[in-house]
């Protein structure tokens, strides 16, 4: 049960969004530009960073929904996403993404944990400053989203099929509500 009287029947972050539309709009728009805007990292890669950070933060709603979104960007391949969350260094993803996930993992623990060695590794694997910047911002933003969702004890579905549907919508329609 949520800590405050959030709208009934809405899960996770959508209940907070409905409760406070003033802050929902920029949060939705930020998610849209971070995860779906023009970028040299694919939406699948960016969604994997979001799912990975959310998993490390133990935010079930965010990690499950963004895992599903990542999988739908990857032609429904959940195996890669699960492998990234379990042990990204052995997952079948690029060396560049592994380096960016290392940085994202450091940010999840605390911004000052990012080291020059982490950044040097990302550069060696071909990451640009823009890609490193974006990985850091995605990780930082999801730490905030995760704490928002869990700090209010929002409704967290347990049915994997519900997240699959959510992820499909997120991947195909995005995060901004069209009127």
């Amino acid at each position, binding site marked *: 049960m949520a800590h405050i009287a959030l709208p009934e029947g809405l899960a996770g972050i959508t209940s907070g969004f409905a409760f*406070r539309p*003033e*802050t929902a*709009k*920029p*949060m939705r*728009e*930020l998610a849209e*530009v*971070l995860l779906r*805007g023009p970028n040299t990292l694919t939406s699948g890669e960016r969604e994997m960073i979001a799912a990975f950070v959310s998993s490390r933060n133990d935010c079930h709603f965010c990690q499950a929904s963004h895992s599903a979104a990542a999988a739908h960007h990857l032609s429904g391949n959940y195996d890669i996403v699960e492998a990234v969350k379990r042990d990204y260094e052995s997952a079948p993803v690029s060396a560049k993404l592994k380096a960016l996930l290392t940085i994202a993992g450091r940010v999840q623990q605390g911004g000052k944990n*990012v080291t*020059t060695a982490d*950044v040097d590794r990302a550069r060696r694997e071909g990451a*640009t*400053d*823009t890609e*490193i*910047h*974006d990985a850091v*911002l995605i990780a930082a933003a999801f730490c905030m989203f995760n704490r928002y969702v869990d700090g209010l004890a929002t409704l967290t579905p347990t049915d994997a099929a519900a997240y699959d549907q959510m992820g499909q919508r997120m991947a195909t329609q995005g995060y901004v509500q069209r009127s």
Partner: protein
Amino acid sequence: MSSVRNAASLYLPGVEIDHQPGPYQKPIADAKNRAAEYSKIWDLFAFKNEFTVHLARFSQGVLRLPVTISPGVRQEPPGHHV
């Protein structure tokens, strides 16, 4: 003498030098022309205006929109409450 603590360079020089048109471009240029220090978060805000605009709207919504908690209390850092 400046009261601003020396700010270290960012570890992303490509971010530090690439100030896009937007609200932070001129203040950074002015500070540099005066050889004055400025908060390095301005470099981040100036780097990708398409991100910054949403962060700014979010901050405005959280910190400035009318609610029963005053803007002053909302800005107060954690731990300052007695």
